[in-house]
């Protein structure tokens, strides 16, 4: 075991080019993979934030008394899909419109906005069909004039999310495959570069396990290094992007550790598969 470790370390010294290349390719692959991961993580949280704003607004008939609205809210809060329901008085509606549509503020002097009840739906209850069902039920209240919920917008949001997930998974898988291929290739080259040594080991009585172990350790070490490097690069990338463009979040620690672990696994499994196959040829 001590010898295997020394051999694995020697491999770095004896073939620094191959080692640097392996680590670099693992790092680049995981970096690319990680970039998509970051996009996915950030898109997901952004979507979640946007999704939380999916709301249904029931406009009340002019002159609906505040206590009727309050009673309606109590009824609405019983709906299983509804998270919050809030009464917006005509005055607050006007004030809000003014700040939101500043450019046209003069316009609102004269007009009067209707009061409304604003609902937020629970998480997982924001699919287009659910929202439409809630809207239909709201319309049955006698003093509800109209219900608005931006049906199209909700649908678009969902479609975007689906596409992003699928694209992310597909691209991620593709990059992971490339990473595995490159790792396999570099290990194949290491084996070929040491073919003489390996055949000599066999001839002086080394067991297969003894021959394989340094390669596995080497693969593991390269994977950890490559994973760490990729993580570092990703961290720098998020810092730069956060500072210069838009605030993005980094992987949380368990996910980051998982990334390095993935690198280690990639290196180890890539080595194991490739070494087994290559050793048979030497």
């Amino acid at each position: 075991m001590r010898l295997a470790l020394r051999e694995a370390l020697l491999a770095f010294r004896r073939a620094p080019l191959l080692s640097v290349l392996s680590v670099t390719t693992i790092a680049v692959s995981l970096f690319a993979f990680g970039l998509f991961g970051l996009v996915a993580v950030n898109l997901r949280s952004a979507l979640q934030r946007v999704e939380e704003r999916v709301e249904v607004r029931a406009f009340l008939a002019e002159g609906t008394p505040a206590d009727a609205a309050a009673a309606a809210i109590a009824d609405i809060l019983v709906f299983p899909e509804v998270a919050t329901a809030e009464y917006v008085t005509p005055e607050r509606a006007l004030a809000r419109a003014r700040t939101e549509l500043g450019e046209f503020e003069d316009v609102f002097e004269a007009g009067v906005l209707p009061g409304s009840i604003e609902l937020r739906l629970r998480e997982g209850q924001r699919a287009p069909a659910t929202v439409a069902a809630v809207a239909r039920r709201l319309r049955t209240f006698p003093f509800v004039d109209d219900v608005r919920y931006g049906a199209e917008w909700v649908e678009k949001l969902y479609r975007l999310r689906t596409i992003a997930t699928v694209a992310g998974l597909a691209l991620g898988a593709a990059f992971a495959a490339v990473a595995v291929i490159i790792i396999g290739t570099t290990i194949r080259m290491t084996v070929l570069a040491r073919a003489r040594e390996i055949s000599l080991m066999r001839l002086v009585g080394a067991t297969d396990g003894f021959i394989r172990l340094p390669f596995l350790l080497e693969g593991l070490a390269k994977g950890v290094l490559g994973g760490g490097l990729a993580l570092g690069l990703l961290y720098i990338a998020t810092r730069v992007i956060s500072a210069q463009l838009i605030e993005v979040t980094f992987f949380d620690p368990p996910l980051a550790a998982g990334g390095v672990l993935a690198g280690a696994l990639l290196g180890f499994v890539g080595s194991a598969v490739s070494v087994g196959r290559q050793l048979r040829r030497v």
Partner: protein
Amino acid sequence: MIRYTSVHKEYPRTGVALTGVSLAIGKGEFVFLTGPSGAGKSTFLKLLFFEERPTRGEVKIGPVSSATARTRDVVDLRRRLGIVFQDFRLLEDRTAEQNVAFALEVIGTPQGAIPARVARALAQVGLAGKGHALPRELSGGEQQRVAIARALVNDPFVLIADEPTGNLDDRATRGIFDLLRAINASGTAVIMATHNMELIRRNPYRTLELNRGQLVFDSADTPGDGEGT
């Protein structure tokens, strides 16, 4: 202890290298193997340490038979053999010392015991001062002697030497040969392929001669000439 039974070896692209070879070699014997270039000497030896397997027939060494040996058996066998390859097979990125130590490390010799044994083996072949040189920094004969040291260092029970003195002058050849004799005297069987007829003439050991893959002469079959089994 070693037995070849109707051994036939055919290579895919170059054809028959050995055919109809049958013989036995006893424990602790010293055997010369000779014959013209391409006769099959190296092939004969490669069958002995299972670098090649016979196309037909059986090679048996100790309890290990070419007909039944599994990987594990071959590994165990090789650990107890010493092999001098005709082309040396030194690792170019390791010093003479490291090349010799390699043979011990691979079979799991305790680290502490290695340096002394390596130094002794190098001294035996007359390379005490060259331990730190890489193969390319050694002369042809020096490389050959490193290969011999590597074969000796694990105290093998059979020493297989393929043309171990091809790059040595007469005096160095005598030195190496005396060493092989001493090793043989301590109970190790030695099988040595050589073109050095002088050596064969002067030393009354059993001699096998191959020609075009056939065993054409075995001094053990010729009473009064050589020691025999």
